[in-house]
């Protein structure tokens, strides 16, 4: 049963305790959350400050010369085109797979739920490298679109599968009882129920594509990110690279504005109480075989190709990785840095996520969108901006794990904010209001009610940030403490001298360690639970 939010009584009494006048309160709801969120967003905006400072130094003439060229127009069109194609493909693949594993009687659906999430553990530079080693002369827009789709569709699959599983079946049942068929019920009811989850995942995919350098550089798809990397390589041209980065920020603003505009106000489909009840599973009948074949094919392309390619490289080369201790140290460093990054990111994401969920409105929306801005910047730009920040502002942090953790936080904040906000939105605010009305202070409510309720979201966000941090390379190269090797940097070291066999174990370990949080994300979505009835 869906229960409406009891947002009467207690909530109205709340503000008085803050001692904030009513009008100010409307403008700035939840002052403590707001201050903390603003601080979090300020951290995420460090790269933009750097961009502004350095680009301004270049002078109007130089900026104009870099900007108003046919080349920039082409790059913008191609980047947006790639983002559009990959996002559309990921939505089809992600929603389709999610629907198959949550709403049908497909054999082995729990197994396929894990397989569908696992590509999240494969960095695009490994996948792209595997593909060029497997297929000769693979290059350009479409191969890059293929590899990016295979690597990033779990960003759609995971939230949509969770939403499908959590959605209230009553609405669908009503739809059917009113005479709509299965297909129309799916398009008119189910797809709308999962729309927020789909849109959130699609936005992450689109931004991921804009920021990706691995697939586009190896497969030579000429996008902004590749042009930015090339600008650094070509004559160490920081200014040109940074001007291009500004365009990338502008493209991000466009995407964010588009996504915000299509959001339906007040659309909230969470189940607000009552017992969880699973939806009926559709009997696929003979259709199960093509469905099965499709899922197997996707798994082979996304996971099989990299696995086989790595194995072949390991067998055909004679180079070997360093001593076991070296591999273990790199793995330890990867774990440690990604954990630190995840912890710091969650610390920043928590107030922002809670603000978005609990005090929605223009202020929360703007702050939330601002947190996304740096997400589409390539790692090398984030790296340089934090070098700038470290050298000029935070000298004691420079070239320590902390600054790198901060880089991960600015890069991956949106991944975490989304998870926290999602979990908080599903928890009825009524509980917090009741607690407040019973005399608990705001901190006590946060500790005893809000945090426990959002804990699954915090965990999911942390897992997502952790495994994305494991894969990150460009910012890690620039910001890691001198002498610290991670799995990703060791992989880079070995592949750049052609020692592919030495690289393979690092790649395998990187994927294996990242697979653990991925598996956990699947389990958390309830996709591994035994049949509900």
């Amino acid at each position: 049963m869906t229960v409406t939010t009891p947002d009467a009584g207690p909530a109205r009494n709340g503000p008085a305790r803050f001692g904030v006048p009513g009008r100010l309160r409307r403008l700035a709801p939840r002052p403590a959350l707001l201050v903390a969120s603003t601080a979090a967003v300020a951290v995420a905006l460090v790269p933009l400050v750097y961009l502004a400072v350095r680009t301004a130094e270049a002078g109007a003439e130089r900026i104009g010369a870099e900007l108003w060229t046919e080349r920039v127009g082409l790059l913008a069109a191609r980047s947006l085109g790639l983002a559009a194609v990959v996002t559309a493909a990921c939505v089809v693949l992600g929603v389709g797979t999610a629907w198959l594993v949550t709403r049908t009687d497909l054999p082995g659906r729990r197994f396929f739920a894990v397989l569908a999430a696992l590509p999240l553990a494969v960095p695009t530079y490994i996948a792209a490298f595997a593909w060029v080693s497997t297929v000769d002369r693979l290059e350009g827009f479409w191969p890059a679109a293929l590899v990016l789709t295979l690597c990033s569709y779990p960003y759609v699959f995971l939230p949509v599968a969770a939403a499908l599983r959590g959605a209230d079946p009553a609405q669908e049942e009503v739809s059917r009882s009113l005479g709509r068929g299965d297909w129309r019920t799916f398009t008119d009811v189910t797809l709308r129920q999962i729309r927020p989850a789909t849109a959130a995942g699609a936005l992450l995919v689109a931004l991921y594509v804009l920021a990706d350098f691995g697939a586009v550089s190896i497969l030579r798809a000429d996008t902004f990110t590749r042009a930015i990397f090339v600008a650094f390589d070509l004559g160490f041209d920081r200014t040109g690279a940074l001007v291009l980065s500004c365009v990338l920020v502008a493209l991000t603003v466009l995407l964010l504005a588009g996504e915000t505009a299509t959001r339906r106000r007040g659309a909230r489909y969470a189940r607000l109480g009552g017992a969880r009840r699973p939806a009926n599973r559709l009997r696929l009948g003979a259709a199960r075989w093509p469905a099965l074949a499709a899922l197997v094919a996707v798994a082979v392309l996304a996971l099989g190709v990299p696995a086989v390619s790595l194995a072949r490289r390991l067998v055909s080369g004679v180079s070997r990785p360093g001593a076991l201790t070296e591999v273990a140290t790199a793995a330890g460093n990867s774990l440690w840095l990604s954990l630190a990054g995840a912890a710091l990111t969650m610390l920043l994401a928590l107030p922002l996520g809670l603000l978005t969920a609990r005090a929605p409105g223009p202020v929360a929306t703007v702050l939330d969108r601002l947190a996304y801005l740096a997400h589409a910047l390539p790692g090398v730009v984030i790296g340089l901006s934090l070098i700038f920040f470290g050298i000029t502002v935070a000298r004691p942090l420079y070239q320590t794990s902390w600054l790198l953790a901060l880089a991960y936080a600015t890069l991956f904040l949106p991944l975490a904010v989304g998870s926290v906000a999602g979990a908080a939105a599903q928890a009825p605010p009524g509980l917090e209001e009741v607690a407040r009305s019973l005399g608990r202070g705001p901190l006590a409510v946060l500790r005893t009610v809000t945090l426990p309720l959002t804990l699954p979201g915090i965990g999911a966000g942390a897992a997502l940030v952790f495994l994305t941090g494991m894969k990150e390379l460009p910012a890690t190269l620039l910001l890691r403490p001198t002498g610290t090797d991670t799995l990703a940097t060791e992989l880079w070291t070995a592949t750049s001298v052609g020692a592919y066999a030495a690289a393979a174990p690092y790649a395998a370990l990187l994927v294996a360690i990242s697979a653990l949080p991925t598996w956990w994300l699947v389990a958390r979505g309830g996709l591994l639970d035994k049949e509900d009835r």
Partner: protein
Amino acid sequence: MPVPARRSLAAVAAAGLLSFGLVACGSGEDDAGDPGKAGDKIITVYSGRNENLVKPLLDKFSQQTGITVKTRYATTAQLAAQLLEEGDKSPADAFFAQDAGALGAVAKRDMFAPLPAADLEKVPQAYRARNGQWVGVSARARVLTYNADAVPTAELPKSVFELTDPKWKGKVGVAPTNASFQAFVTAIRVQHGDQKAKDFLAGLKANEPQIRDNNVKIVEDVDKGTIPVGLVNHYYLGEIAKEKGTTPDGLKAKLHFFPGGDTGALVNVAGVGVLKRSAEDPDTRAFVDFLLNPESQKHFAEQTFEYPVVAGIAAPAGVPPLTDLDTPDIDLNDLDTLDATITLIKDSGLVP
């Protein structure tokens, strides 16, 4: 699915502990960004050269001198950007770069201290900075690598400019984003003027070259036979051979040195510069001395297949000695006009 409050408290406590752990672990590396003092037996080197290639050498240095080397590995271009961003606050003592262009970019910002004459004099004038701000430590020749099955030696081009001939359409591998390709294009401009460079790039582009991300990939594809020829540095053959457990002779990919002082046979260097604040640091000076001593020079010849730049050390196996190469008459100091080269490469459409 409410989670018991106690569990959440435990999680918060764990997060808190983790943060303290972060601080504790972080403090161990607090000196990571600290420039350090002269003569403290610790130096920080930014290495644009690959760890696999130079770490054994740096370990040897530490063993012999008792000086700890903290090495920061990244691409030469990224480290150049990092150094320019850090300015005079850089914790680096020395920059060990993959090519002269990057050293020139840092030197142009006046970040390097002049090196002692004793070091400079070991290296021919053409392979070091005129103002003494950096010195080459190993040399690499531009070559045409070719697949012996696909291209008979008689058909090999006499000059790199022949590669724009329709006969090579779709057959030439290039890595236009690579710094050594840029140095080569600058060399064309120095030797023959901008127009010739522009025409060459346009001809190359019209010939539908096989563009690769880096030289390793080109040599691999030439060895496999998927590309007949490619423009690379000579030592990549050694790297690929090493991975295959053989010597360069055992590969299908062979080296062709352009004759007659052709621009295609340009010799470039990997080199080192010392940051200003370490001008008087005996440890950093010892490091530069070490790179130019006979033992290190031999290491480059034997382990990285590069040419030694100090006289009297044998060339790597399987290639003619540097003195026998018919190299173009180009001073690396004249290759510092990168901006014009980059504009040409960008305009050619070979890069995005």
